[in-house]
Structure formats: C-alpha cells, structure tokens
C-alpha cells in the first residue's frame, strides 16, 4: 500500500488591504497560524515550499522566508505556475511525504499585491503571461485574454453574460459569511451586468479584485499529533493530477478542452473516485468565465449548464455541491498564489467541521482545482475526510 499524505494544519490572513505589510510579513502570519493549527514546532518542519510574490521577485524566496521565519528545512524551494502554484505545491508536498523525503512540509505563499504596487504595475506584470511578440504588444491584458476566451465560450455554448454573472453573485453571498473576505457588499445579477466594462463580455464584477493576503498549509506523513483534528477527523490528500497543454491563449486549441478535464481525470484515477463521489468544491475563479468553464469541462455541470445549476441552488452552501464557501477569488479576494490556496484551506475547514458560521453539511470528498495563465496550467486535488481508526 502506498503511503498517504495528510493535511495537518491550515492558516491564513484576512484578504484585502494590509497597508505596510510586506510579502514576508504576510507569509509569516499565515505560516505561524498553520503551524499552530498543526500543533507543530518550527523544528518539526523539514520541507518548505513557497510560491512567488510579484511584489518581491526574489531569486530564492523559500530560503529568504526560512531565514526570516527561523526554519532549517532539509528540502526547500519556490514553485511558479501562476494561479496553479498553490495546488501544485500541495501536490509536490504530497509526493515528498509519500516518497519519504519529508515528514512535515510547510506550503506557504502571500503578498501585498494590492498595497505594495500601483494598480497599473500589477496589471502590466500580470499581462506578461501573454506572448511578448504576438499578444502583449497589442495592448492585451489578462482580462483581455479572458474576455476573448469568454467570447468564444459563449459563442459555442449559447451562454449569456447573465449566466456568468450568477457566479459573481454566489461568490459575493458566500464571502459575506467569512469575516476575512475582501469584498462583502451584496450584489445582484443586474449589478454585475451594469458594472463597468473591462474586456467584453467581462465587466468589473466578472473579475476578481487584487488583494493583500497569505495562506499556508502543512502536509504531513502522519495524520496529526492527536490523530487528527479535535474530533479525530483526518484529511488525506487522496489524489492529484496536472495538465499543461499551452501557455498562451493563441495556442489554446479548443476552449472546450483546455486541460482541466485531463488533470481531473488523473486525480480521480489516483483517488479511485469519480465526479459523483464529490460533495464539496473549491474551484479557481479568477473570472466568472474561469469558474463556468472549469465546472463544465470537469463535469460538475453539463456543457452550458453551470449557471442553471447555480440558479437551482446546487452550488449554494445548502446545495448538493457547495462551491467556494469562503467566497472564492471573486469576493474573498486574490493576492496571487495564496488566492488559489484559500480554496484548499476552506475545503480543509469544511471537511474538519471548523468553518464556524459558514459550516455546511460535513463533506466527505472535496475537489480542488486551480489553473494558471489563461487556463494554461491545471492542477486538480482530491481531499478526503477519514475518521480516526
């Protein structure tokens, strides 16, 4: 039998504006919370994986973080696959633990993406995921890439802008239940449709905000010091899969087959599970179109049917398949790598029954998916709750 990797601790900051806090400050807050949650001391951590920070483009961020945070790991480096970085780090941590290389891997990311730079600077940095000769010189931006992709997806599926808007509304409603969320003003579909145009068909409320914040998780070879969380619940990283089929939108062969389903199939195969076994979702939602395409390609809704499932309440906290119960990137906020990790942190809290006022019916198997670039790098994870033996 192959060894299991367990998520033994999670922590993070609120998302929003943290004036005066640098990337390392935010990362330290999240890491401290995750270590406390796991009941581990610094000396227990023998592996460290860091994301990148656009406000701190350091060559050796993991080493720098370890120096500042007083860690002395046997294995450490940074990982960089855009929005998929957090999920990719969890997948790698799982391999390090299962392979016997590490006992406890700290996975951490954070940055002051909102307050640490001008909005123009952030937008220009992000636009560089585009091709420097064929795409960026046209005055393209990340919303423009997603706007182009959305135009094609709506064309092929017959979905309307009001369908995409459903997800902005759901994410806002969920965020209102989380005290750490960046955006909590209630919105309606009409508000989304009337919001400022950004890159048609995407309006301001179809796009996630830019936030400051950090998230951290601990992945361990053992289920936890007390055999699991308070009531003995343990969370296993039961399966993981990736796909990387293109970098640039110009090279994406088909909006109906961007790689998400391939990554998901690999994760399901490892876990011995299928779509029907999943009862909780943490799906990357940089834009409303991102969430719609991922839900449909992976199979959590029929093609062109995600909005209908949302309207029916299926993705609501009391529905059959609660989705991003923390509010997702669209409303909890997006500070880069940590933004994509918040979905995993929330899934762990829901699985272990520690989501407080927003706790849903205890899930058994959560599916977490993140993508980087323009649906370019995909990582799927399956988190399973197991009762202590």
């Amino acid at each position, binding site marked *: 039998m192959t060894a299991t990797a367990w998520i033994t601790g999670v922590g993070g900051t609120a998302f929003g504006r943290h004036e005066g806090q640098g990337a390392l400050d935010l990362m330290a807050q999240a890491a401290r919370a995750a270590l406390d949650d796991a009941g581990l001391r610094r000396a227990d951590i023998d592996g460290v994986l860091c994301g990148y920070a656009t406000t701190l483009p350091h060559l050796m961020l993991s080493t720098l973080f370890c120096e500042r945070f007083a860690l002395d790991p046997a294995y450490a480096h940074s990982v960089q696959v855009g929005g998929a970085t957090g999920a990719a780090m969890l997948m790698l941590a799982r391999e390090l633990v299962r392979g016997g290389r590490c006992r406890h891997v700290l996975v951490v990311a954070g940055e002051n993406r909102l307050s640490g730079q001008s909005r*123009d600077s952030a*937008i*220009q940095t992000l*636009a560089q995921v585009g*091709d*420097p*000769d*064929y*795409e960026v*010189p*046209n*005055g*393209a*931006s990340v*919303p*423009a890439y997603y*706007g*182009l*992709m*959305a*135009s*094609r997806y709506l*064309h092929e599926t017959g979905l309307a802008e009001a369908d995409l808007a459903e997800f902005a509304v759901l994410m806002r409603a969920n965020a209102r239940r989380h005290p750490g969320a960046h955006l909590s003003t209630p919105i309606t579909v009409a508000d989304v449709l009337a919001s*400022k*145009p*950004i*890159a*048609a*068909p*995407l309006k301001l409320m179809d796009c996630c905000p830019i936030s400051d914040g950090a998230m951290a998780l601990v992945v361990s070879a053992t289920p936890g010091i007390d055999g699991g969380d308070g009531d003995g619940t343990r969370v296993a990283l039961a399966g993981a899969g990736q796909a990387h089929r293109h970098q*640039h*939108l*110009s*090279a994406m062969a088909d909006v109906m087959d961007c790689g998400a389903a391939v990554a998901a199939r690999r994760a399901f195969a490892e876990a011995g599970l299928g779509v029907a076994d999943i009862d909780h979702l943490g799906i990357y939602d940089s834009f409303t179109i991102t969430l719609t395409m991922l839900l449909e390609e992976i199979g959590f809704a029929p093609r062109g049917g995600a909005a209908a499932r949302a309207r029916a309440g299926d993705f609501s906290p009391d529905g059959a398949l609660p989705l991003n119960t923390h509010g997702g990137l669209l409303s909890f906020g997006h500070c880069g790598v940590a933004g994509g990790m918040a979905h995993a942190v929330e899934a762990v809290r829901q699985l272990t029954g520690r989501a407080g006022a927003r706790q849903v019916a205890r899930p058994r198997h959560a599916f977490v998916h993140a993508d980087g670039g323009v649906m370019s790098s995909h990582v799927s994870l399956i988190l399973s709750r197991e009762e202590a033996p």
Partner: protein
Amino acid sequence: MNASSTPAADTSGVPSTPAATPSSALAAPFVEGLARHELRFQRCGACGAAQSLARHACTRCGGEALAWETARGTATLHAVTVVARAPSDAFRALAPYTLVLAQLDEGPRLMAHADAGLRIGERVTAGFFVHDGRTLVRFARTDPAAG
C-alpha cells in the same frame, strides 16, 4: 531554425514601418515581417502543419524543420473582445479598442486589433498600423465585392 529561413530582404516599394525588437531570435521573422506588412507564420517541413505563435518544434509531429511563409492576410474571426480598461498609458489613448483572435486561412491563430463592431465568424482581411513605435495588425471586414 535561424534567419536563413526568413523571406528575402527589403526591396524598393515594399512597405516599411517601425519594427519592434523581437523578444527572441525565434520570433524575429514574425516581428520583422510586421514592419514590412507581411503576416509570417511557420509551416512544418515534415507534416505540413501551420503553427500558431513561434515554435522550436511542430505542434503536430514534433518535427524541427519549420520554414517561414507569408499568409495572404484573409481570416475568420474566432474570438472578439472590446478592451475598455487599457493596461498602459500607451494604449489608454486608443481605448476602447477591439482585440480579436483571427483564424488565418492558412491555419494559424493570430491575436490582433480589429475594426469595431465585428463578430465571431466574420470574414476579415489584415491591415497594418503603427502605435507606440511598433507595427501592429488590424483586421477589417472583407469587402465581398473585392472577391
């Protein structure tokens, strides 16, 4: 591949507008082609597949013998957006502007500007304009009368 596969040198009468500095030797023929008002793309010498973007190997067969050709400039619109929020001062003056992914008749997909009001599926023809010191492509609706 290297510069030996680029089309012939400039001759009198050939349009010439500002060229940007390519990000790499690989993409230089494309960038230099824009300044001469040519849409250049690579085709695989082994399997004949036309490539989107610049490649070191064929996306279909992995062959490394890719030769640059010049497209006719006719295309069908694959995706369309209108950028209202420009990413930089240089483009703020143009906003709102239409960006498209066009499927060239030869096969490659190309991101470019386009006239306002065009829709997915429309037939278009490439033109060229200069903005912020670079030559860029702008597609216009193909005039059916022009054949």
